[in-house]
């Protein structure tokens, strides 16, 4: 029986709550409604209002109280309803969630998993399609994970909740309905390891979250043109698995980074910087980027022109091959 990524994450939350009664789920509309994407569906019914509850409409409040709950000994899994509504909580995330464990010299642990549905491609109105991962990955003290498959949706969520560090868990909302025949519970590689989803010899394509499927489609299309792409799913954006990326580029000599976020200072910038630092003599072409543009996220009817897609990836492959 096939399950979707949303269902896989829901199952992970359920199993985590079952396994450890310190796990708490809260946020806007996560209770009775089960979340606007139904990712928390049924959790309040099963575990009661004490463990899965709706909060007032205040994101800073949600993260700030998560910190206090974690200080008490709970393992909070707060939800930010959408990517664009994480920003009111920016101070609590950056100044406290990320920094308090270090500030306390290790005495305070904050095992908080902040769930954020992110990214575009679903025809939503403004502020519902943001890709804020670079803000978090630039912030020391946070771990940042994003699954690209339903299997990872389950396994990485379990790993994030079990982890003693704060995790920003970015759920690629346009892939919530992506299906898998996996049997749950499932374990995959630890999140910090990037995974080669498809082996190839010409160009390494680094991607994550919503763009994993797109990159795999591009690899299919590239094969028709005679190019062999290696698709690497990064999974963890902080830390980055530099070793796996470098090893891939050592094989292929070429690299492309794909993400929805704006190009400037997006993950592609860091990845390009690291690869040229560490695989300088292996590179036969510069690391290129197939990304969103340096403009605000566009209106729904224009998102297809803005988002990186198979064509933009192939264009970069062609440019890379032309060096």
């Amino acid at each position: 029986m096939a399950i979707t990524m949303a269902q896989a994450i829901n199952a992970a939350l359920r199993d985590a709550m079952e396994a450890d009664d310190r796990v708490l789920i809260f946020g806007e509309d996560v209770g009775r409604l089960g979340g606007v994407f139904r990712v928390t569906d049924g959790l309040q019914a099963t575990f009661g209002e004490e463990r899965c509850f709706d909060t007032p409409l205040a994101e800073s409040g949600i993260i700030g109280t998560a910190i206090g709950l974690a200080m008490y000994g709970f393992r909070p899994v707060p939800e930010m309803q959408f990517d664009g509504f994480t920003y009111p909580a920016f101070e609590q995330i950056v100044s406290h969630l990320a920094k308090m464990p270090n500030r306390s010299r290790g005495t305070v642990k904050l095992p908080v998993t902040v769930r954020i549905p992110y990214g575009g491609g679903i025809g939503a109105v403004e502020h519902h399609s943001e890709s804020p991962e670079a803000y978090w990955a630039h912030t020391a003290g946070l771990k940042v994970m994003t699954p690209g498959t339903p299997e990872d949706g389950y396994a990485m969520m379990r790993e994030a909740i079990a982890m003693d560090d704060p995790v920003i868990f970015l759920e690629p909302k346009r892939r919530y309905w992506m299906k898998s025949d996996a049997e749950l519970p499932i374990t995959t590689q630890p999140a910090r390891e990037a995974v080669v989803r498809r082996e190839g010899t010409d160009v390494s394509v680094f991607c994550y979250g919503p763009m994993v499927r797109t990159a795999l489609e591009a690899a299919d299309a590239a094969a028709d043109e005679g190019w062999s792409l290696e698709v690497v799913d990064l999974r963890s954006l902080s830390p980055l698995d530099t070793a796996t990326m470098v090893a891939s580029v050592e094989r292929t000599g070429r690299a492309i980074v794909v993400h929805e976020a704006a190009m400037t200072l997006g993950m592609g910038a860091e990845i390009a910087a690291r690869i040229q630092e560490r695989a300088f003599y292996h590179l036969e072409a510069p690391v290129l980027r197939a990304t969103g543009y340096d403009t605000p996220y566009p209106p729904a009817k224009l998102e297809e022109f803005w988002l990186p897609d198979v064509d933009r990836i192939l264009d970069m492959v062609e440019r890379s091959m032309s060096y």
Partner: protein
Amino acid sequence: MADHAIDPRSLLPPDEPVHLLDPDGTLHEDDDHPLELDDEQLRELYRFMVVTRKVDREAINLQRQGQLGVYASCMGQEAAQVGSAYALAEDDWIFPSYRELGAALVRKVDAAGLLHLYRGTWLSDHDPYAHNFALMSIPIGTQALHATGLAMGAQRDGNAIAVITYFGDGGTSEGDPHEAMTFAGVMRSPVIFFVQNNQYAISVPLEKQTAAPTLAHKAVGYGMPGYRVDGNDVLATYAVTKRAVERARRGEGPAFIEAMTYRMEAHTTSDDPSRYRTQEELDEAAKTDPIARMRNLLTQRDLYDEELEQAIDEQAKETAAYVRAGIYDASHGDPLELFEHVYVDPTGHFEDQREQLRAELASSADGDGEEVA
């Protein structure tokens, strides 16, 4: 009196919301809230509400037909919006959230333009300066600060206007309206913080949003009066808002208004309210319908006849048809417009990226014959 300059008792809301018009159309005159509306104005208030409901319905239909991506209905809240917006003068400003179709129609904002946000042809599509009606604001409560800033600007300019900003019961929990009211209180800025308490923030009912006795009680914490009004009573809403607006224009500072109402539709067209509220609750709420009671008043006063009914009906249909025509299959503009408005002076920004998009558009136009529009 204590060591504080202002008597807090003067700021607290009365025990009961101001209410002038019963569901059966009976009007209770109230010296504190004089109406001073002539027959034409009574009819106009009614007309705005009927047109609002019609256009709202049309928008829901357009969404069902795939013409809008999503839509946030204001059904049930027509009186709160129309009554309050009607109390403003033309040069007053409105800072809406995403649900204020009724206020926009009173303001004569182009409703088709407004709905382009929901169609996704652009992020917003009306000129805020044309009718002093700001862009709709999606991040909850943020617009309260813009309203306050604009009011501070008017004060500095010696321009005695009032500014009204709408947000919801849920919005009162966010930090931004709190900061806006703090600023407006200290600066005595002419802002009306108008909360449509429609009982829910998506699925979250009021009692999980706040423990305050009423939302209006929050006002005292900012040194401004908190008013409460039956938000399904267009006349009471008008009168209470008017009083606050006049006060603000006179330089007496901001005010907070809690309008008690009910959201008759889903939160947005994407929402499934059956998960969190019952049919009985809806049936109960329907009894307080804002439009019916105004028609009852007009009927009682012999201001309502078939002619009026037809005229209003026609106007409603026309506006809805106009909206439909403006939205249906409406195309987005040139995708290169994505780079047009990011900066006034874009020097140095994204020439390469514009080139990339231009090339993609060209190749998809030539190549596989895909339509751009």
